[in-house]
């Protein structure tokens, strides 16, 4: 492998990692703070991509599609929390798996009824659909650089909000001891709705960012869900920086696994890595206490 190629593949690995981080940030937030396994996270991701694709092609503006998609997925998340999922905080993980498994089926078939089975078009605005000349021998797709930027900004923002602001403090308090936090005057109910909506909006954001490079179609959420779960668990459930590190590691392992290993081993690479990491650190790379 030549040096420019090595650099390009490393960049590819990092970019894939950031993409995975975007996809899993919402999941780890909800999983970690509310202790709720939301398998329908992939469905919210799909919803984000579908809404963004249709609004963007209707209005002709990518940005409008993006804004509407984030709002719609946040609203869908809040609605799900209020109408259904809040009953499941105190139930077992298995009941959560059951209800969100049902949600996946409903979302997929619902999307097929609304948008039809044929994959949607989601084009990039001119200017972002080409590639950028980085240095001699290395052109890089412009939109992938945008994904890289958005992912890093989201990571920083999340970290800052949760660790450095009053809202973040309430969230952490509500998560670790609900009754106590409520007694201290924190509106836990509103906080939980807010966190769930934020998690959903993050899933929607990931969907709309992935839409232009991936197929926007019914069932697109499930393969991504698996990757998100892998990232969340390797990083340590509920740990935002853990998710970022894990996502980058998985991105690099997957990229180089595909280039250097046989196809069968390449497909397995991330799962072998995951089993090895969990065998070594059973609570993930950055275990969250409390």
């Amino acid at each position, binding site marked *: 492998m030549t040096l420019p190629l090595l650099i390009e593949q490393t960049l590819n690995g990092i970019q*894939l990692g950031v993409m995975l981080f975007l996809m899993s940030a919402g999941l780890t937030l909800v999983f970690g703070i509310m202790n709720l396994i939301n398998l329908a996270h992939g469905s919210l991701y799909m919803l984000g991509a579908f809404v963004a694709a249709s609004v963007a092609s209707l209005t002709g503006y990518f940005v409008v599609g993006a804004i509407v998609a984030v709002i719609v997925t946040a609203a869908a998340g809040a609605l799900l929390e209020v109408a259904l999922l809040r009953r499941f905080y105190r139930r077992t993980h298995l009941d959560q798996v059951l209800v969100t498994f049902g949600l996946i089926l409903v979302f997929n078939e619902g999307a097929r009824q609304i948008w039809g089975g044929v994959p949607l078009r989601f084009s990039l605005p001119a200017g972002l659909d080409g590639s950028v000349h980085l240095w001699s021998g290395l052109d890089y797709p412009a939109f992938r650089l945008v994904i890289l930027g958005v992912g890093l900004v989201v990571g920083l923002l999340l970290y800052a909000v949760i660790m450095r602001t009053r809202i973040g403090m309430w969230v952490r308090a509500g998560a670790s001891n609900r009754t106590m936090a409520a007694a201290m005057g924190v509106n836990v109910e509103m906080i939980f709705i807010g966190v769930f909506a934020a998690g959903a909006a993050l899933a929607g954001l990931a969907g709309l960012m992935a839409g232009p490079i991936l197929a926007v179609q019914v069932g697109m959420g499930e393969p991504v869900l698996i990757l998100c779960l892998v990232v969340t668990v390797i990083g340590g459930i509920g740990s935002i920086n853990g998710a970022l590190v894990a996502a980058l590691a998985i991105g690099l392992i997957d990229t180089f696994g595909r280039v250097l290993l046989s196809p069968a081993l390449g497909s397995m690479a991330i799962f072998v890595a995951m089993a090895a990491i969990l065998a070594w650190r059973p609570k993930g790379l950055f275990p969250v206490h409390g």
Partner: protein
Amino acid sequence: MRHLLLATVFALSSIVSAQAADPIKVGFISTFSGLGGSLGQELLDGFNLGLESTGGQFGGRKVEVVQGDDQAKPDVGRQLADKMVESDHAQIITGVVFSNVMLALAKPSLDAGAFVISANAGLSQYAGKQCNPHYFTVSFQNDTPAEVMGAYLASKGVKKMYIVAPNYPAGKDSLAGFKRGFKGEIVGEVYTTFGQLDYAAELAQIRAAKPDGLYFFLPGGMGINFVKQYAQAGLKADIPLYGPSFSLDQTVLPAMGDAALGAFASNFWSESFQNPTSVKFVMDFEAKYHRIPSPYAAQSYDTARLLDAALKTIGGKIEDKKAFQKALETVKFDTVRGKFRFNTNHYPIQDYYLTEITKNDKGQIVMALRGQMATNSVDTFAEQCQMPSAE
């Protein structure tokens, strides 16, 4: 004695008339949910339109279609086939999208006495050693579109090709077919994970290998992912894309958009065919379903019309299996492909055409006809087939 004779004659004639009155039952098993869901719908819509064009009848008998969703799971498909053959008394099983589902349900359905008419899955097993008197494939054998494209590119003097397919049997068959046809140098042969999302790593390797062209076999969402990312990486200008029709047809083109423009496909049919049957098919399909049909729909449309034509020659008597087999083997019908006949292994002998992905005057992305690539193309497995006679 005379009474007995009369009674027998009467009973026999009532059986015959009951047969003529009984509808022909077709079991349509396909994938309607999950990622492959649009393909099953495409096949079903094509089949229904074909059936409509024959007045809802095969050979003058009413047709009843029972459908089922195999979810792309072989064991679910097998159960559906059992149900349709045993419970619904289906005489024909058709519709299946995926090879693994077909492989699971073909043998038991055939053993139970049904005819299996593949509207899509192009198994090599049944084209060769396992060929069966009651198994017919109306679509194509999986390797052929690739082989034709390989031979065509070699004849045009293309020297270095890079080839990509998912790591599963249909993908490997396709690339093997391409290599049989292409005599130049293969500078890279890559097998990706089935269902892979991101192709950045592979694209970087392709750019570095500097081939004259890229042949890819990536059906469904994988193809959409790949072609979008290929265009965004700026590779399209330097390295032209070549694929079989189903990597670049109307089930994926609307989603690929401009990214697919300029790619080439090898087709046995495309929406730009100008023969009258094809023109009528495309018009009727667009009128009814408000989208351009894909080859999937065309195959399935042909399947229905082929069954009608074959049954017409034997007066609709599907119960006479020997006659029905014979009628299928020698069937002549108005096909959207211009011409069609079955080879000795019950797979098609058909022509292949080169199409280029372009925009039509309505701004739709379509496969425009660019010329013929092969005449009377047959698959290589036919030599291994010694068609047994049905018991």
